[in-house]
C-alpha cells in the first residue's frame, strides 16, 4: 500500500475515452467499415432439437451477390470424446455452439452463414438454403431434463452408465454436515427456482473480419477479450494466432455475455472464402434467442443453527441449466453461496444440466446470485425462527480474517463485517415504512479474479505518458488506470493517455470479467510505472552525473535524494524526456504478469418495496448497497458498478424471464416483452463504499463489478415477505405470481 496521501487515486476524474463517447465518435462493434466490405448473415434453426440430415446450399450460392456460404464443415471439429479446455470453455462445446454440427440443439442455433453484397441479399440467400431435419423431442426446463425418460441432448454423456442430461457435478465440503445438523436446534430447509436471464447489454454482438490471401487476418469486434477472440477464432478456423490481429472495439456492455465468440469464426471463414472483409451484426432477436443468458436453477438449501443463532451446518444443492451445451456456473453457485459465513459444517453441491435452450454464458458473478438467492432467503427465515434481527444473525456468523471457507481459502483481511455494521448503522435501516411496504436485507460474495495482464507505460518526447493495457474497458477502467499512473508518476491525470491495445500491440491479457480488470491492470501498470521511474531517476543521475540511488522521484520530478547528493534544481518529466536521446534512448517499460492475490468481495444490501396488493405489482422504493470495495480508485465508476448490478438484480427479481411457447421457441425475444428495468421503474440507488484495502494489492484494489448483483434477489424477496408476510420461492416475482399468492388463503406464519 502507498501510505502517502493521494492526489489522483480516489478522485472523480474525467475518463480518457469520455469526449468520444458523449459526441458519438467512439467506435463500437458495428461502427466500422472496410473497403470492399460485404455482409454476413446466419441461418438459424427453426427447431428446438433436431438431427441435421443434410444441408443444400447450392441455390443460395447461385443467387447473384452471394460471395460465400459456410456450414459446420468449415469450422474445426473438436470431437466430443476429448476435452479441449480454453480458459473456462471447452472447445468441443464452442465449436458446436457457433455452428450446429450433428444436431441443432435450440431454436436459433446457427446452421449456416452467408456473405453477400448487401444485408438483404444475405438474408434472402439464407432462406434459400435447404436443411433436412429429423425433428426430435425436446426439453426446456430442468425438472423435465432430469426425468428418467427425458429426451437426451448428448447421447455420449453418461451418468452412472446411462445417457443423461446431467453433464457435470461439483462439491465443496467442510466438516461433517450430519454431525452439524445433529447439533442444530432450529433448521430451515427450502427449495427455490430461478429463471434464466439475459445479460441485456444494449449493443448486439458485432464484428468485421478481413482475411487476406496469405491468411493475415484482422478482426474488429466487440468482446470482453480480444485475446479470447484471437484464441477461439484461431482454434475454430485453423488459423494460427500470430496471423490474427484482434482489435477490441469499444464495447457496449457485456456483463459476461461477451466472453465467448459467436460471429467471429463465421465471419472469418466467410471472409477467407470470399476474399472480402465481412461484417456481421446480430439483431436484438438473435441476441435474445442465441446468445447466452445465465442459468435458470432449481436449488434446495438447508441451514441449521443453535438457539443462540450460531449456524452449525449448511447444505446446498444447486441444479443449474447449462443450456444446450455443458458448462453452467455451478462453481459460482456452490462456491459463493455460503462463503459470507463462518460455518463449521458445509456441503455445497452443484449439478450441470443441459436442455434445449441457448448455451449459458457468464453473467455478473456467474452462479453466485443463484446460490445467494436461496441461502439469503433461508437466512431470513432462520432469523424469524430465531427471533433475531436478520443483520444480527449475519453478524453473529460473519466470515472474518482467518475463517476457512468451504470453497477452499482461509480469508485474509476482508470487509464483510464492516458491510453489515454499516448497514445496521445506516438511517435507511431504521427509516419508517408505510402501508404495504416492506424491508429486506441480504448479503453476497464473489471470488474476484486476477490472472494474466500486460501493460506498457511510455513517456512521450514532450514528457507526457501513454499507458496501454490489454483488457477491454466496459465501465471506466481507463479512468482508474489514468488515476493510478498519474499518482505514481506524479503528474496531472490529463497528461496520461490510456489505451487498450490489440493483440498485436500489447501482451496477452485475460478477459474483462470476474471483476479482474482493475485489480490486474493496476498491478502491471504500477510495476511498469515503477520501472519507468527507475529509468527516469537514472537519466537524471546521468544528467547530474551522480549515482542513480542518490536521485528520488517526487511530484513528477527527479530530485537529489539529500544534501549529500549535491545541489540540483529538480528535473521534470518533460525536461528528462527532452534529453532522452542523449541519455540512453526512449523511455518506457512494460510488465506482463499472472496476477494473484485477488481477494473476495462482500456486500450487504437493504431494500424497501411497496406492493400494490390489488394488482400484485412490486416497486422498489429505496435501495442501499454496502460493499467492501478495497480501494475506490475512481469512486464514480465503483458506485456505477454497484448501481448497475443492483438494477440488473431488480430486473431479475421482478420481471425478467424467457417465455417459451409450445414449440420450444422463445416467445419474448425482444426488449419490449423481456422487460428489463426502465428509468421510471427505479429509485436512486445508494452506493455506500467501504474501503478495506486488499492487503495483496499495491493500491488495495478488490474487484467490485460482480458482487453488487449477488444479494439483490434475496433482498427483494425478503422485503416482499416483510410487506406481505408471504414468501416467494421462485423468480421472477412478477405481478401474476404475487397476486395469485395474495389470493390464496393464508395460514399465520
Amino acid at each position, binding site marked *: 500500500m502507498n501510505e502517502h496521501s493521494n492526489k489522483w487515486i480516489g478522485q472523480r476524474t474525467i475518463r480518457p475515452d469520455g469526449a468520444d463517447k458523449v459526441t458519438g465518435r467512439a467506435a463500437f462493434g458495428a461502427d466500422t467499415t472496410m473497403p470492399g466490405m460485404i455482409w454476413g448473415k446466419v441461418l438459424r434453426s427453426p427447431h428446438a432439437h433436431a438431427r441435421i440430415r443434410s444441408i443444400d446450399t447450392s441455390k443460395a450460392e447461385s443467387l447473384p451477390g452471394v460471395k460465400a456460404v459456410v456450414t459446420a464443415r468449415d469450422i474445426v471439429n473438436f470431437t466430443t470424446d476429448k476435452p479441449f479446455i480454453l480458459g473456462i470453455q471447452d472447445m468441443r462445446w464452442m465449436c458446436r455452439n457457433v455452428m450446429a454440427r450433428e444436431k441443432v440443439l435450440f431454436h436459433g442455433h446457427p446452421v449456416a452463414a452467408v456473405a453477400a453484397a448487401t444485408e438483404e441479399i444475405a438474408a434472402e440467400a439464407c432462406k434459400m438454403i435447404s436443411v433436412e431435419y429429423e425433428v426430435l423431442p425436446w426439453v426446456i426446463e430442468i425438472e423435465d431434463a432430469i426425468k428418467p425418460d427425458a429426451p437426451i441432448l448428448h447421447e455420449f454423456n453418461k451418468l452412472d452408465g446411462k445417457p443423461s442430461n446431467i453433464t457435470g457435478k461439483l462439491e465443496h465440503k467442510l466438516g461433517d454436515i450430519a454431525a452439524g445438523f445433529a447439533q442444530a436446534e432450529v433448521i430451515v430447509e427450502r427449495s427455490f427456482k430461478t429463471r434464466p436471464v439475459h445479460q441485456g*447489454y444494449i449493443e448486439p454482438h458485432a464484428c468485421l473480419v478481413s482475411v487476406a490471401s496469405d491468411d493475415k487476418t484482422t478482426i474488429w469486434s466487440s468482446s470482453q477479450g480480444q485475446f479470447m477472440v484471437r484464441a477461439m477464432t484461431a482454434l475454430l478456423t485453423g488459423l494460427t494466432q500470430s496471423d490474427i490481429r484482434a482489435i477490441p472495439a469499444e464495447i457496449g456492455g457485456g*456483463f459476461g455475455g461477451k466472453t465467448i465468440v459467436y460471429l467471429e469464426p463465421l465471419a472469418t471463414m466467410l471472409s477467407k472464402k470470399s476474399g472480402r472483409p465481412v461484417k456481421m451484426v446480430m439483431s436484438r432477436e438473435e441476441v435474445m434467442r442465441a446468445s447466452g443468458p445465465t442459468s435458470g436453477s432449481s436449488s434446495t438449501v438447508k441451514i441449521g443453527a443453535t438457539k443462540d443463532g450460531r449456524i452449525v451446518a449448511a447444505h446446498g444443492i444447486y441444479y443449474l441449466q447449462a443450456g444446450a451445451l455443458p458448462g453452467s456456473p455451478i462453481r459460482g453457485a456452490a462456491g459463493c453461496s455460503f462463503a459470507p459465513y463462518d460455518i463449521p459444517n458445509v456441503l455445497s453441491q452443484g449439478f450441470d444440466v443441459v436442455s434445449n435452450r441457448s448455451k449459458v454464458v457468464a453473467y455478473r458473478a456467474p452462479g453466485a446470485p443463484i446460490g445467494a438467492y436461496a441461502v439469503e432467503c433461508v437466512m431470513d427465515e432462520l432469523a424469524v425462527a430465531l427471533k433475531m434481527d436478520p443483520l444480527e444473525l449475519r453478524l453473529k456468523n460473519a466470515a472474518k480474517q482467518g475463517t476457512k471457507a468451504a470453497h477452499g481459502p482461509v480469508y485474509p483481511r476482508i470487509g464483510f463485517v464492516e458491510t453489515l455494521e454499516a448497514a445496521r448503522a445506516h438511517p435507511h435501516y431504521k427509516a419508517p415504512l408505510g402501508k404495504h411496504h416492506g424491508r429486506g436485507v441480504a448479503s453476497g460474495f464473489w471470488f474476484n479474479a486476477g490472472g494474466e495482464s500486460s501493460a506498457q507505460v511510455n513517456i512521450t518526447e514532450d514528457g507526457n505518458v501513454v499507458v496501454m493495457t490489454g483488457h477491454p474497458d466496459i465501465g471506466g477502467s481507463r479512468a482508474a488506470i489514468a488515476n493510478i499512473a498519474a499518482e505514481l508518476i506524479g503528474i496531472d491525470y490529463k497528461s496520461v493517455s490510456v489505451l487498450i491495445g490489440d493483440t498485436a500491440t500489447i501482451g496477452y491479457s485475460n478477459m474483462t470479467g470476474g471483476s479482474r480488470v482493475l485489480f490486474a491492470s493496476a498491478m502491471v501498470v504500477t510495476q511498469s510505472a515503477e520501472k519507468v521511474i527507475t529509468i527516469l531517476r537514472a537519466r537524471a543521475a546521468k544528467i547530474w552525473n551522480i549515482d542513480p540511488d542518490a536521485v528520488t522521484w517526487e511530484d513528477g520530478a527527479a530530485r537529489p535524494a539529500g544534501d549529500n547528493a549535491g545541489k540540483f534544481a529538480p528535473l521534470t518529466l518533460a525536461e528528462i524526456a527532452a534529453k532522452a536521446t542523449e541519455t540512453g534512448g526512449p523511455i518506457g517499460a512494460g510488465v506482463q504478469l499472472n496476477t494473484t492475490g485477488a481477494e473476495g468481495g462482500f456486500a450487504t444490501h437493504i431494500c424497501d418495496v411497496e406492493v400494490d396488493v390489488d394488482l400484485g405489482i412490486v416497486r422498489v422504493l429505496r435501495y442501499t448497497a454496502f460493499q467492501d470495495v478495497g480501494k475506490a480508485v475512481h469512486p464514480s465508476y465503483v458506485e456505477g458498478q454497484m448501481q448497475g448490478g443492483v438494477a440488473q438484480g431488480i430486473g431479475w427479481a421482478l420481471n425478467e424471464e424467457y417465455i417459451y411457447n409450445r414449440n420450444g421457441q422463445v416467445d419474448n425475444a425482444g426488449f419490449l416483452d423481456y422487460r428489463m428495468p426502465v428509468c421510471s421503474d427505479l429509485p436512486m440507488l445508494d452506493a455506500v463504499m467501504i474501503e478495506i484495502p486488499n492487503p495483496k494489492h499495491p493500491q488495495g484494489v478488490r474487484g467490485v463489478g460482480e458482487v453488487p448483483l449477488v444479494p439483490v434477489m434475496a433482498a427483494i424477496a425478503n422485503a416482499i415477505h416483510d410487506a406481505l408476510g408471504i414468501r416467494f420461492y421462485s423468480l421472477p416475482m412478477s405481478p401474476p405470481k404475487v397476486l395469485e399468492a395474495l389470493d390464496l388463503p393464508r395460514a399465520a406464519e
Partner: protein
Amino acid sequence: MAKLHVTTTINGDPVEFLCEPHHTMLDVLRGSLGLTGSKEGCGSGDCGACSVTLDGRLVCSCLMLAAEAEGHQIRTIEGMAEGEMLHPLQQKFLEMAALQCGICTPGMLVAAKALLEHNQEPTETEVRYWLAGNLCRCTGYDKIVRAVLETAAEMRGAAR
C-alpha cells in the same frame, strides 16, 4: 429496386442521399451517411439508442423511414456539441460519470436535450418518465438522472 432521392437537413447541413424505400433513417445515418453516433440496440423502438430529433421532436430513427426525412430537419448526437464546446449535458455526463459502456449515451443525450428544451425545470419523476424509452443496462440510471437534473439546474442558473 428504384432508389429514392431524399433532400434533407442534418445537424443544420443540407444533405442529399439515395435510399431504398424500406430503409430506416437509422440505416441511412449509420450506413451511407457514416453518422454512426446513433446506435442500433434493437431496431424496434424499444431501446432509444437511435434517438434523433425530427423538426425538434424526439423520435427513434429506427422507426422512421429514411424517405420521410424529405424536407425536414434531423439532428443527431453528432450535432449536439457546438464546435469545440460540448453541450452542458455532454459535459455533465462526463463529470458525473453518467456513462459506463457508453452505448446508450448518444441516445440518452439526445433525449435529455429534447427534455430540457421542452421543460427547463423537470422533476426527478419527469426525467425518469421522459427517459423511459432509453434503456441503459450499465448504470441503473442513477447517475444519468442526477446529471440531467443538475444540468437543468445549471442551465437555469446561467439563464438567470
